[in-house]
């Protein structure tokens, strides 16, 4: 189905291109994603031209609970009656409540936290803490990683699309192939402050390491007095069927964990850097070395607490696993129907990726899915992969709609062969 914009939308696109970048608008238009959202509810949003779009991405976890989840809206409205950002020079009971709730979910003695506004800031802080605590400067990340766009976070990235115009990046950063314990061992030195990994990397087509990978990483870090930072911005908060994805690696306790995106269910910008009591000692000597005027606002804390109350229940996490299995059943059928187009899929909980035979096929799939009324996105570090990560509140019927749309898009891929 050819998507023709109305005159009103054309005008908006023209003005948007002027204000925010013509190439961005051009690319999004070609991907069928030149959408101005108006209404949004659950897994659906409506374009200004009236077209309804089914969300199969949840903005990489921001909308884990769908759009405007009633309990989250209610918590925010209630909070607005008495709260604002809060005065971050002072103490906050709302921050304390959220930190308590998070500490009840995290492994080991990750009992301390600092709140900021975005995942990138939270990663920056994690690296600052690692360097400050260890007195070392080396940071090792995965070649295929994405940890953010700000100073330290950007320097963990090896994708030139993000880094090329901004060099030189911070010194002391190096990369290893994700899941390669020997490469990590070789890269580690007496100056390695921290290793930062996501538990699995959807941006690269959902790379899931061997079961014992993180226990070996933990061992290596312990041996070398190096901190282990786990970035759960995308994988955490239930996405993989456990509250934190690192829980799939039994017994592994990171030194620092990071959460953002879905932390406030798409209603407020908020991120958390969480760390062990030992690492928290760093702040005894530098209590004011890091600050955020708007991070960890009282209002955001109330919203994040409401999100945890919804997701951190066994039956809710079970429902994520069941919906993930339903998606996987659909993918199995698609694999049989389109063997030359669809190569494989990855699935853990509702963290799923389809891998196409065409190395750049993700772009076309994106366009065809948009034509079928479904919003998904190719993986940034693997243009053969399409990420399918619907909101947890997706219904069985909506999962069927996503599978039908994928089938329709794959048929179009076949025609183009």
């Amino acid at each position: 189905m050819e998507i023709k914009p109305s005159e009103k939308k054309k005008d908006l696109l023209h003005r948007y291109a002027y204000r925010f970048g013509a190439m961005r608008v051009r690319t999004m238009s070609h991907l069928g994603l030149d959408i101005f959202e108006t209404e949004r509810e659950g897994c659906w949003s409506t374009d200004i031209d009236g077209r309804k779009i089914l969300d199969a991405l949840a903005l990489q976890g921001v909308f884990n609970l769908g759009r405007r989840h009633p309990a989250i809206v209610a918590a925010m409205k209630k909070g607005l009656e008495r709260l604002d950002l809060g005065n971050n020079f002072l103490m906050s009971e709302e921050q304390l409540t959220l930190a308590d709730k998070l500490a009840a979910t995290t492994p080991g003695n990750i009992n301390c936290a600092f709140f900021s506004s975005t995942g990138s800031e939270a990663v920056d802080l994690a690296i600052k803490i690692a360097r400050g605590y260890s007195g070392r400067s080396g940071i090792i990340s995965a070649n295929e990683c994405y940890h953010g766009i700000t100073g330290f976070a950007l320097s963990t990235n090896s994708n030139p699309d993000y880094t090329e115009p901004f060099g030189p990046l911070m010194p002391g950063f190096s990369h290893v192939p994700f899941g390669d314990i020997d490469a990590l061992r070789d890269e580690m030195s007496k100056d390695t402050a921290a290793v930062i990994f996501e538990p699995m990397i959807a941006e690269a087509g959902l790379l899931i390491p061997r079961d014992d990978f993180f226990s070996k990483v933990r061992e290596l870090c312990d041996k070398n007095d190096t901190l282990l930072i786990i970035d759960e911005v995308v994988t955490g908060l239930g996405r993989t069927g456990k509250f934190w994805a690192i829980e799939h690696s039994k017994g592994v306790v990171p030194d620092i964990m990071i959460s953002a995106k879905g932390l406030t269910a798409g209603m407020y910008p908020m991120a958390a850097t969480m760390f062990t009591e030992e690492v928290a000692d760093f702040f005894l000597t530098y209590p004011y070395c890091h600050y955020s005027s708007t991070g960890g606002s009282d209002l955001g804390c109330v919203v994040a607490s409401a999100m945890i109350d919804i997701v951190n229940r066994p039956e809710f996490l079970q429902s994520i696993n069941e919906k993930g299995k339903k998606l996987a059943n659909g993918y199995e059928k698609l694999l049989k129907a389109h063997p030359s187009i669809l190569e494989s899929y990855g699935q853990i909980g509702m963290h799923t990726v389809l891998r196409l035979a065409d190395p750049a096929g993700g772009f076309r799939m994106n366009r065809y899915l948009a034509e079928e009324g479904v919003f998904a996105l190719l993986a940034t570090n693997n243009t053969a992969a399409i990420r399918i990560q619907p909101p947890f509140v997706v219904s069985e019927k909506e999962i069927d709609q996503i599978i039908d749309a994928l089938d329709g898009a794959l048929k179009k891929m076949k025609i183009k062969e």
Partner: protein
Amino acid sequence: MSDIQESLKAANDFKDKMNENVKVRKLLKRWNPLIHFDAKDSDVKLTFKMSEGMAVSAEEGHVGDAELAVTFPTVNDLVDMFSGKLDPTPMYLSGDILVKGHQADVIKLDAITMIIWPEK
């Protein structure tokens, strides 16, 4: 005019337009690729060399090790891109243009056409 003559003329006109354009030179001053172009329906092969925002040469054949190789469906498409009549990004996104090398470089080619022919 033969395919190769027409393609070479379009590529050289494109090169001249790029080099006349201050904005292109400024925005692409750190982009120094050797680019190979060809078309599926023809033997036409071109090599385009960029250096510090300037198009240094557009010549016949595939010379050197290219950082970026772009294959168009037809030689007409190739000529049309160099003439500002075709945006390479949509053709890439739709799978019509094949690219070897850094995918984001196709967007840079598109950006050049957008700057040279802003009225498009």
